[in-house]
């Protein structure tokens, strides 16, 4: 009896059809965390939903176990889904085995900077260092102790360039940046305690990346400490203290991939979202009182990154 209940309860797949009917492109997303995690997975789901196309979308999220993700990816391909998004660097090895078996299916994989030589795989990655840099400029400007805490997951994927870009800018602004990688993408309690540790070490501004940061934002809220987000807009976690969020708009490169597919190219290219192509957007929270000077400095940083005059150091 329990087995049946468990199977029913753990079936996380959902059909999030943006439209249906004959001729609609079928697309599936396999994501490692909840599709509404205010972070990595949500960024892709929001982006696919933002595509201006006739698409039927299916989602399997919460596949933090790679083998589960691999089964879902293969399952979608066997079902004849046109495009399967494997949203996680860790799914690369599985994709290298699965993609050659389904040459008519397009696989979209990231964050990754190459396609592993597979001609039916598109790769995508964010230049997360760019938003990290902009956040770092603002963070250093509003910090009064000159100490900023960063809560990261595992030293991998887009977390590393985000944090490196943040450090470059914050240190250039005279701040000291303390970084804690908790070793987990999902451990909210550890993220919260990592934030507490930074506060104990006099940090008065915090940032972090990955889905477990919701715990750290809670600590920032309790302490009245400003927070900088990335991946998705995290203002809803604290409308007063989230200063700005670097938001991923994958739809910018997804559109390019779909256009290529329409013209017969099923993969073989890598794409990047960045400030220049509009795939990365710094969304400021109007509820946080940021001075005009600091906003101008952030805008200057964005312009400098786009025109190449600023090196994020990542």
């Amino acid at each position: 009896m329990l087995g049946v209940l468990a199977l029913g309860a753990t079936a996380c797949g959902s059909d999030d059809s943006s439209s249906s009917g004959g001729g609609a492109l079928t697309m599936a997303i396999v994501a490692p965390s909840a599709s509404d995690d205010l972070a990595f997975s949500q960024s892709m789901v929001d982006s696919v939903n933002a595509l201006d196309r006739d698409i039927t979308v299916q989602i399997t999220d919460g596949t933090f176990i790679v083998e589960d993700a691999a089964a879902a990816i293969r399952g979608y391909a066997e079902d004849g889904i046109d495009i399967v998004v494997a949203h996680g660097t860790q799914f690369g090895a599985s994709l290298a085995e699965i993609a050659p078996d389904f040459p008519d299916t397009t696989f979209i994989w990231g964050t990754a900077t190459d396609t592993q030589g597979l001609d039916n795989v598109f790769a995508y990655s964010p230049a997360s260092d760019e938003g990290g840099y902009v956040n770092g400029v603002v963070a250093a400007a509003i910090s009064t102790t000159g100490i900023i805490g960063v809560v990261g997951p595992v030293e991998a994927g887009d977390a590393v360039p985000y944090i490196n870009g943040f450090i470059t800018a914050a240190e250039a602004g005279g701040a000291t940046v303390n970084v804690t990688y908790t070793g987990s993408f999902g451990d909210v309690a550890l993220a919260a305690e990592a934030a507490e540790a930074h506060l104990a070490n006099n940090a008065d501004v915090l940032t972090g990346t990955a889905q477990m940061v919701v715990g750290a934002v809670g600590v920032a809220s309790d302490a009245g400490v400003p927070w900088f987000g990335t991946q998705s807009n995290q203002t809803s976690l604290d409308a007063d203290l989230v200063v700005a969020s670097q938001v991923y708009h994958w739809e910018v490169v997804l559109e390019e991939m779909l256009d290529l597919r329409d013209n017969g190219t099923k993969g073989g290219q890598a794409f990047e979202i960045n400030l220049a192509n509009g795939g990365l957007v710094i969304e400021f929270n109007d509820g946080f009182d940021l001075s005009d000077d600091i906003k101008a400095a952030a805008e200057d940083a964005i312009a400098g990154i786009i025109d190449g005059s600023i090196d994020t150091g990542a």
Partner: protein
Amino acid sequence: MNDFFTSSVLVATAASAIRLATPYLLASLGETIGQRSGVLNLGVDGVMLLSAFFSYWTVLETGNLWLAVIVALAVGIIMGVLYGVITVFFEATQGISGIGIFIFGLGFSDLMFRQQVGTPKPVQRLPRVDIPGLADIPYIGEPLFQRSLLTYLAFALVPLTFLLLNKTTFGLNIRSVGENPQAADSLGVSVERTRFAAILIGNALAGLAGAALVLQLGIFQPNLTQGMGFIAVALVYFGAWRPLGVMGGALLYGLVNATVLQWKSLGIIPVSISDLAGMAPAIVTIGALILLARRVNAPAALTKPFSRH
């Protein structure tokens, strides 16, 4: 390293250790009672997840923290009834049944979160309660006497569990059905009822552990526990089935975790070995378990279903 040995950082580390230890302690004490009666429950993590979600949802909908704690307790008891019926009355294999409870808890809490909440929304956290006269003691006041009521309860349950197991008739019955259920049965002790009651208490405490976790964080997300319930089961072995030992294990695990986080924050542990250092709590606890496990024996009837036939 000098930065670590300042009073403010040491106090913060101790406070962090106690916060981290609280859910483990509650769950482990409950599991201790169950295992002393001969019942292994590998479903603790699932019960914690369910109670954490329903507790969170209650606060989200009502804003009432204490109702949330009661709900978590009730969820734990309901899961205890389910587990008790399966393992005690149907005599199902405890290990498999426990895993079933875990998978159900993981999946159902995830499903309910998606259906009823969706995007993580912060809720109020358990308030800090300062103990008059003690909270202001230098160094120890902040980590020990400026905590939430559930933390105080967790530590108060250590001597209470000891008294229950060692100084009451019910505790004697629990220990006897855990060691030799046939002998206990021949003396008129109801093995089924005793084990069932122990399971209910154990699951109720697992429910409180879920509430302590989610109400400390003020937010829920799928798989919030990240396997805490399994560590809680291991801590029972670490603690040699004794409440004081279990508390020692929970505090050790919390302290190593908190110290590693502080050292990372201070740069004492370089980023290059950060992930490796994250394994320290498990390694230290397993090392201690290996040393301690040589000197203690598990309840003789642990995991063995009882049948008169």
